[in-house]
Each structure stands twice: as structure tokens, then as C-alpha cells.
């Protein structure tokens, strides 16, 4: 394993750990509710009434599907670009041999 691969693997591991640890440490006591919703609940409890409703409010299951769609569109586009860039690099011989490692 090259040093570069190792660093990449450790970075990925760190990201996963950062979000897995709260779940493990918590042991199922918290709801992990969104902070956005926490604020609106607090404001409503203080007596504030929103003066405008969302133009379109999908039902819970539909909403999670649309969130997944948003992530999928983004991930698809990102993967397409990164794949294209990688393909461009690996398919064309380097224009200047040894560029970057003189």
C-alpha cells in the first residue's frame, strides 16, 4: 500500500468515525432530530406562528425520497466529472514527460 492510499484510507476512516461515534456513544437514547426543526419547535413553543406556508410539502416518505434524489443527482454529477477527469489523465500520455517531478 502506497503512502498516498494509506492517507486516503485514513481520511475516509476518520470521516466515518466522526459520524459513527456519536451514534455508538449515544446508545440509542437520542432522537437525532434536526437542528433546523429544533429551532422552529422552540419558536412555536414561545408563541410564534409562521405567517407563510411552504408552497409544496411532500409527505414524510416522499420527502426522504426527494432528499435521496438530491443527493443522487449531486453524487452522480460529481462522480461523472471526477471520472471524466481521471479518464482524461490516464488515457492521454502526459504532454510533458515527467512534469511535476523534476
Amino acid at each position, binding site marked *: 500500500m502506497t503512502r498516498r492510499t494509506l492517507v486516503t484510507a485514513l481520511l475516509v476512516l476518520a470521516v466515518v468515525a466522526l459520524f459513527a461515534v456519536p451514534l455508538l456513544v449515544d446508545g440509542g437514547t437520542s432522537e*437525532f432530530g434536526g437542528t433546523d426543526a429544533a429551532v422552529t419547535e422552540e419558536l412555536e413553543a414561545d408563541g410564534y406562528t409562521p405567517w407563510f406556508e411552504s408552497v409544496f410539502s411532500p409527505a414524510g416518505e416522499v420527502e426522504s425520497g426527494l432528499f435521496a434524489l438530491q443527493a443522487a443527482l449531486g453524487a452522480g454529477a460529481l462522480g461523472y*466529472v471526477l471520472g471524466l477527469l481521471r479518464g482524461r489523465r490516464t488515457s492521454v500520455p502526459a504532454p510533458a514527460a515527467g512534469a511535476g517531478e523534476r
Partner: protein
Amino acid sequence: MHIAEGFLPAGHAAGWTIAAAPFVVHGARAVVREVRENPGSTLLLGAAGAFTFVLSAVKLPSVTGSSSHPTGTGPGAILFRPPVMALLGTVVLLFQALLLAHGGLTTLGANAFAFAVVGPWTGYAAYRLTRAAGAGLMPAVFAGVALADLATYVTTSFQLALAFPDAESGLVGGLLKFLGVFAVTQIPLAIGEGLLGVLLFRVLTVNARPELERLGVLKPAEPVTPGGAA
């Protein structure tokens, strides 16, 4: 960071919309100019937009027992400067306001100001300062991406505190209250987002070297021969 639809008093909603609008218009012009002058940028521009599209769709758990969204606006701000993200970020917010009942049209201005203006500018400033201090690309990317995330939520807390100051302790009390909800939860997310930014730039430095050199993120590996192509 998404202030829900109708949750800012009308005056505040209008004020933040007016504050954000010039940035978004300027951002739209910046995107058009970038694509026109450097058609080769389109791919990376798409990647920057896609990054914020993915990250802002994900809710991540945090140590506080609540969850929150990352923002993903840092890499685009570092690559293309913040104005570009003012447009791309607002497009993301509009998508979420219209289709996901997340955020809202009345709060679009305030949310755009936090997510698409203050976040990217803070991240960009952090990136530039870190590099100016002599740090390498990756530490600077980490700082920029993480702080773009954190600054967005600090701004949201400030916006809410302005609209809903604490009954006794006023603006400061309100700010502390909303920061208590947002900021602590956001710190691990910002760190995670910073690491993701580093991963993205590790891929880009290998595969998009010409673009990064042109954008000034990387120094050209070899001195350009003088008198070359204009």
C-alpha cells in the same frame, strides 16, 4: 441553517432578501463570465455545484444527540472564488425550498445570505489566510471548507437572534441560545466536511492539475516558457 418557511418576521425576510440579492446577481454574472472565458472550467464548476448539492442533502448525526446538514460550499469558493457559490448555493436552497419544504421562499434571502454568501466568503478568507501563513494546500482546504460550514450556522444563529432576541438578555442572549442549538452540533460536521474537502482536493490535484494551475490553486510545476501562446 434552513430557517423554515414563514419563520422570519416579514421585515426581516424582506431585509435579508434585499441584502442577499446583489450577491446572487453578481454571482450569476461571475458564473456566466467564468464559463464564457474559460469553457474548460465548466466541468469543475459542475463538480463544485454537485459537491454542495450532495452535502446539503445529507443529515448527519452529531455528538449533541441531534443532527444537521453540512453545506459543501467551501470547495467551490476556494476554486472559483465566493461569488460563484452565491449563485450555486442559492440554486440548492431554491430546490430545497420548492420541492422539500426545507427552508422557504420567504426565508430564501436569509438562508442564501448565510449559506451562499457568508459561508463561502468566510471559507475563502480562511483558505487564503492559511495559505498566506505558509501552510500547504491541504491544511488550507481543510480550514476553508470547515469554516465555510461553521460560519453558515453562526450566521443563521445571528439572524434568528436579530429576529427573536431573548426576553431578558436581548440580542446576545438570543445569539447564545441559537448558537447553543446550532454551533456545538455543527463542529464535528464541519470537521468531517473539512476532511471530505481534503479528499476531494486530493483527487483534483492529481486529475485536474491544469485547471487548478489556471485557477491559481496550484503553482505550475514547470515555469511557463515566456512568449508562449497568449
